[in-house]
């Protein structure tokens, strides 16, 4: 990379420096996207401003009745349960596929090329579709069941975990592995006693980070009819019950913040 930059500056005029080109591309792309908006009609619809006012003032008259709070707590639990169950299934997808996809389990070159190729393609496919789209497809395919939500979460998350695990398993320092190999250990043993223990803290730390994202994803599973905080939010919004909307929003924010703080604490200790 360094050699390329120096060659660039030596031969080309400075006008075409790669970063400058990038700036131009980014600006052009943003202007293009602005041109795609419909500028002829107003952006704010009639009554939009007053709705915003009502919504903002509802924050100061929060609905904290026992009914709402009970619903909020049980919806929060549903959301957490979907997230955690989805993540456990994602681990079952991510760990084996990540290990195979990293290509460290075998030395035979053609097995390596074909197995890593197939698993990496599978992982890329899993994570290219958003969890809510998966959820909708699963609900259409197998019916309205919490299992659909868990599967829908597990597939894209498994795809992401698998990719990151594969990278972490590859990035392990070589020297300790070489010393294992010199004692006659097979690639499988090297993986089990060398790579995995060394990569494990980072793998765990990334998994905990994903838990926070999982909570948010689980909250929107309700859109296709699976309960949780998003479901209650949607009902409250349909009823224009802004006070309740705020209660559920604050529960969601609180939940995400708690998990965020927890996972940050775990990650800080793991990286020490």
């Amino acid at each position, binding site marked *: 990379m360094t050699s390329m930059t120096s060659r660039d500056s030596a031969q080309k005029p400075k006008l075409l420096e790669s970063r400058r080109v990038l700036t131009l591309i980014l600006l052009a792309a943003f202007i293009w996207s602005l041109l795609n908006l*419909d500028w002829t009609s107003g*952006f704010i619809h009639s009554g939009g401003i007053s709705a915003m006012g009502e919504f903002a003032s509802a924050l100061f008259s929060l609905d904290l009745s026992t009914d709402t709070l009970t619903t909020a707590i049980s919806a929060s639990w549903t959301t957490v349960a979907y997230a955690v*169950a989805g993540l456990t299934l994602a681990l079952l997808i991510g760990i084996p596929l990540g290990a195979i996809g990293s290509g460290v389990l075998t030395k035979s070159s053609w097995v390596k090329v074909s197995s890593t190729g197939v698993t990496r393609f599978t992982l890329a496919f899993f994570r*290219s579709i958003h969890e809510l789209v998966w959820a909708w497809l699963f609900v*259409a395919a197998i019916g*309205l069941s919490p299992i659909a939500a868990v599967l829908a979460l597990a597939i894209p998350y498994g795809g992401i975990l698998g990719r990151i695990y594969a990278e972490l398993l590859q990035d392990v320092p070589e020297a300790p592995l070489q010393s294992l190999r010199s004692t006659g250990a097979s690639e499988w043993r090297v993986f089990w006693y060398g790579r995995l223990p060394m990569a494990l803290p980072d793998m765990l730390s990334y998994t905990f980070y994903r838990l926070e994202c999982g909570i948010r994803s689980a909250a929107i599973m309700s859109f296709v009819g699976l309960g949780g905080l998003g479901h209650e939010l949607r009902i409250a919004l349909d009823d224009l019950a802004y006070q309740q909307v705020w209660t559920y929003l604050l529960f*969601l924010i609180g939940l*995400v913040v708690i998990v965020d703080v927890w996972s940050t604490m775990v990650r800080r200790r793991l990286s020490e």
Partner: protein
Amino acid sequence: MTTIEGTSRPTATRFTWPRVTFIRFSMITMMVLIAASWVFVLNADGAQSHSIFSMHTVNRFKDFLSDLLGIGSSSTPAFAQWSEWRLTGHLAYQTLAMSVLAIGFAAIFALTFFMFGARNMMMGDMAPYSSWFWRAVFFLVRGLFVVTRAIPELIWAMLIIFVLSPGLLPGAVALGLHNAGILGKLSSEIVEGLDQRPIQALRSTGAGRFQVMVYGVLPQALPRFVTYLFYRWEVIIRTAIVVGFVSAGGLGTEFRLSMSYFHFTTVALLLIWYLILVLSVDITASYLRRLAR
């Protein structure tokens, strides 16, 4: 095991002991959570007329797949008609525009605020002086990042359609707000991890807070910021279809309509376009990331 370690190296054990307990405590909590979640999920499923683990599910799944592929239907599947490809292609184009607009909004928001969310700039080593005002700004900005980040894109969209008229804009704003929080947090952390020496050199020449930001921090932080921008764009293109479910515009709206009218071959065609979009954005982003380095 701990006692053996404790007798051989007492000081070291006393030092590492709380760290081990916290991780261990977290692991046990996680195990309990996992068990409880699975009990909950499987029990909630038991309330259904048909168990999910039965031939009934398998048959439904098979039916759905053949619906998607247009098997057993008399009409021509949508993905076999050129006109359908052109119609949905336009929607894919709109979704792409929405994603670019969203990342643009997120970038503008994050670039405006990220320096004020960096602890070292506001009250640490890199601040010329410490005052309650900048301290308050720091906590306010961090709070803003937390709230925008904690609310998922789809819920932002559900709120925003009360104010903005349907179209690409509400979707882009919803995507932009959520990602602004993420980008803001990430870029504040870039500033907190920067090499301090160039900035201290600048400070010693008498540069003020804003001069340090523009001439010291920005040039150092910008390349990594742009890298993060592209990573988020890859996520945004995947989510752009989802906010389209509520805000009119792009693939998402058509996806929802086709699903509710049982036009499953159109759903399949939309999914094909979706995958094409995701793949091309991934490739473009990884190319542009190389330019940024």
